[in-house]
């Protein structure tokens, strides 16, 4: 029964975003972006940066820059005609102030930001966006760091993008985590900074869904940003860590349109989370042919076979890793022979992050699980739950997309 069920699960049409929304839609969007960029240009520049000069300093040709812009345009699921606008938006990015805070985190997303790939241009962007506060990188500490934060909040009231890395303890550990000389709790800190932000970008699975600290038994009562902040637009960029290309994509989209990108039911941008790992996996043909790795290092492994039986959760996981990969596209987990662990999905540590297929899961019981279920039973229950989850997700995404399309 299991095999059949799984097959139907995997071959179901995914929530792939409809990339062609019709000429009228794009014409309208183009005009809106044009107007937005013109408006931004009229603002007093925060920095006078000559992009041509910066490119030259960095040893990047104009051609490389446009190549990057065209790749990014495609990633944002916009037609090629938007490429010049994306290039222009990149040049205007210095007008978007960014405040980056770290809560219950491991700094993995900050490190990922440093790996920002594409051509070297992303490094330039790292310099060109106005990064007002980032604990891991900033020069001052203590009172001077806090003063810089206050200054940025005051100066960019209602204008800055607040990037949040790490979860927030709101249960037993609410008082256990503090920041700054006054001993402000993480929750108070986040709420205060959120109040004056234009929008919040939760990066990484801890900030989006609670992630590591929220894994069973969730000792501190950790949750994601959307469970704490209710009064601001929130964009979730999950994954452990989030792919830097998706971080840059969100910022660019915001500069370009003045709006947050189209989101799915979990507040994830559809341009990045509109399809499953499985849909675009380089090993997909082996799945369809029924060729699996059965054991680490076996003949199947030597021949790039499908990793489903080794616990790959690509079929349950919405993310664009299989397309953009990591570290300048040099590799990605499935490329390195390990299954996907579902790191962009809620509760993945308890639902997906193990090296066996779901039906064989010898996984940790959720708190309050009561009587220990047999492994098979438990696996089956989870499998069904995941199936339902995907179906709901797909429906929600489809509806969301339609609504947005009709409005415009």
């Amino acid at each position, binding site marked *: 029964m299991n095999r059949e069920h799984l097959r139907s699960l995997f071959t179901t049409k995914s929530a792939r975003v409809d990339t062609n929304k019709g000429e009228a839609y794009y014409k309208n969007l183009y005009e809106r972006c044009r107007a937005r960029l013109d408006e931004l240009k009229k603002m007093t520049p925060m920095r006078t940066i000559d992009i041509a000069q910066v490119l030259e300093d960095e040893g990047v040709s104009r051609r490389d820059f446009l190549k990057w812009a065209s790749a990014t345009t495609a990633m944002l699921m916009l037609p090629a005609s938007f490429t010049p606008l994306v290039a222009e938006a990149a040049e205007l990015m210095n007008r978007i102030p960014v405040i980056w805070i770290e809560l219950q985190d491991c700094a*993995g997303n900050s490190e990922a930001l440093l790996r920002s790939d594409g051509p070297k241009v992303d490094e330039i962007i790292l310099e060109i966006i106005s*990064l007002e506060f980032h604990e891991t*990188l*900033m020069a001052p500490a203590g009172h001077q760091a806090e*003063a810089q934060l206050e200054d940025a909040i005051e100066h960019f009231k209602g204008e800055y993008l607040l990037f949040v890395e790490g979860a927030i303890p709101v249960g037993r550990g609410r008082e*256990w985590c503090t920041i700054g000389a006054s001993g402000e709790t*993480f929750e108070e800190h986040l709420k205060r900074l959120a109040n004056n932000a234009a929008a919040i970008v939760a990066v990484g699975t801890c900030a989006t869904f609670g992630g590591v600290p929220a894994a069973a038994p969730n000792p501190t009562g950790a949750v994601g940003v959307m469970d704490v902040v209710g009064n601001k637009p929130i964009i979730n960029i999950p994954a452990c860590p989030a792919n830097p290309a998706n971080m840059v994509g969100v910022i660019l989209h915001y500069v370009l349109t003045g709006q947050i990108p189209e989101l799915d039911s979990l507040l994830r941008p559809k341009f990045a989370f509109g399809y499953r790992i499985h849909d675009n996996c380089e090993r997909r043909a082996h799945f369809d042919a029924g060729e699996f790795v059965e054991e*680490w290092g076996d003949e199947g492994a030597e021949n790039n076979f499908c990793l489903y039986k080794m616990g790959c959760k690509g079929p349950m996981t919405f993310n664009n890793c299989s397309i953009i990969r990591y570290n300048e596209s040099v*590799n990605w987990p499935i490329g390195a022979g390990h299954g996907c662990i579902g790191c962009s999905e809620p509760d993945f540590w308890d639902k997906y992050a193990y090296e066996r297929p779901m039906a064989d899961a010898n996984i940790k019981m959720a708190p309050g699980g009561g009587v220990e279920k047999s492994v098979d039973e438990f696996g089956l229950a989870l499998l069904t739950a995941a199936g339902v989850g995907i179906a709901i997700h797909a429906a929600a995404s489809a509806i969301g997309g339609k609504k947005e399309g009709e409005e415009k």
Partner: protein
Amino acid sequence: MSKKHIVVDPITRIEGHLRIEAIIDENNTIVDAYSSSTMFRGIEEILKGRDPRDCGLLAMRICGVCTGTHYQRSIEAVEHAFGVTIPKNARLVRNLIQGSLYLHDHVVHFYHLHALDWVDITKALEADPQKTVDEAKKWAKIAGTTPWVADSAKFGEVQDRLKKFVKQGRLGIFAKGYWGNPHYKLTPEQNLLAVTHYLQALDLQRDAAKMMAIFGGKNPHPQSIVVGGVTCVQDLKNPSRIALFKELLKGFRAFIKGAYLPDIYMAGTMYADEALDGTGRGLKNYLVYGGYRLQDTGFYKSELLFPGGVVVDGKYKEFDQEKVAEDVTHAWYEGDKPLHPFNGKTIPNYTGFGKKEGGIAYLDTKGKYSWIKSPIYDDTRVEVGPLARMVVGYVKGDKRITEYVGKFLKNGNLPAKVLYSTVGRTAARAIETDLMADVMMEWVDELAKNTAAGDLSTWTEFDFNYVSKDAQGYGLEEAPRGALGHWVKIRNGKVENYQAVVPSTWNAAPRDYKNRMGAYEASLIGTKVAKPEEPLEILRTIHSFDPCIACAVHIVDTKGKSLGEFKVNTSCSI
């Protein structure tokens, strides 16, 4: 007459959430100091009850900076428990993955986390680019090499970029730095040289991360290591992947030799008075668990690149994990005496801050004041990290370490005592990076040779149900920041107890039951500050340890008591 009590929170340019409080006397000398971690997640509790084969992935998320090292230690602790010896390819790949981490981590630490403690960016604006070329040549010569950049046009470009940046008003992450503080000692040209390398390292660090991703799948948080071996068969099978790794390594090594080492000579010379004074020397007791297996023998039988050991009062002794204990007198947990990790109890007991005055909350330093426990070795407080590795290797007479440390001191015409200082700690890291880059060239050749000879074996088979009935083991290694160990107990296929005692636990710990200071605290005592309101000197010394606070906070519980509703049954203890 009046002493000042200063609070530095957040300590920035580190991983994690750290607070330092210091008491400064009327001569602007630090007379007392307290180190506190203010963030808690409870990862070890989360690991309990899971399948031991899956723990590595989660344990890795203890830290995104030391990424991969917790992953490997967790996997190795399980392999040690199961008695599994991994194939040669797997050992070499793991060494190369962790080697990439060292190169990446040490370079990013020096340039992006630590350099601004030594380098005044604003002074670089006054530099003469032509004279900067002379400066670059001078320090490269001392290092016995040619400079990474020695082109006045390049230095001029960087300077112009800086000028533009400063002119536009908002300095972003460079705003409110301690620019102009009299304790900055580099000349304008030296500052410009360092800033140039800062920017180039920001670009190059991606290459070291890419090296890890070639065999690891991605960085941060690689995903190709499993209990029994590694999964990256494809990347081993294809000679062009190994060749790409080597090419990136060569490029990065050139930067280490042509920029990083010369910059260390430069900083070491300009701040030599501090080094000779022993500013920041701290505990002067050093511990190394030992790291990087060089042979394919079973656990803890192989020769190591960094030999384990302890140096107390200048004398070397063998390392014995039985002598590790943790104390919670000043940590937010219940407990009354130091206990070996396997017998440790951890029940959170958060008592919060002490007095609050003028909007500032002060630590309750008489009582509990940190989420980090106080590890003790043989009833001694010790320091871990690159300096510990170099000192232990040197005192023990390890051939390779003695050669690299000796070469460094000789080239710089420096007495060995400069190592026992903040500057020395920073220099030891660079010496080690140089050594690591050279050794990795040997390893990558060894890997290429082995796979070319037809050995594609990456995994050792084991019978999980049999070996996981009742087992325990530990994975002990040297992470970039120092001694890192995971201890695991397994029963009926699930983790019964899990613990990590890691570098920043050793270094960032609060006082212990005898009121003896931790390594950070001890290192600050006696330091003279130029301006008490600017914690430049505190940052300099604390950063020299390369703090990683997310790593340091963990919880343990062996007696079946748990934080949440989740229950574990335990019966065995050591």
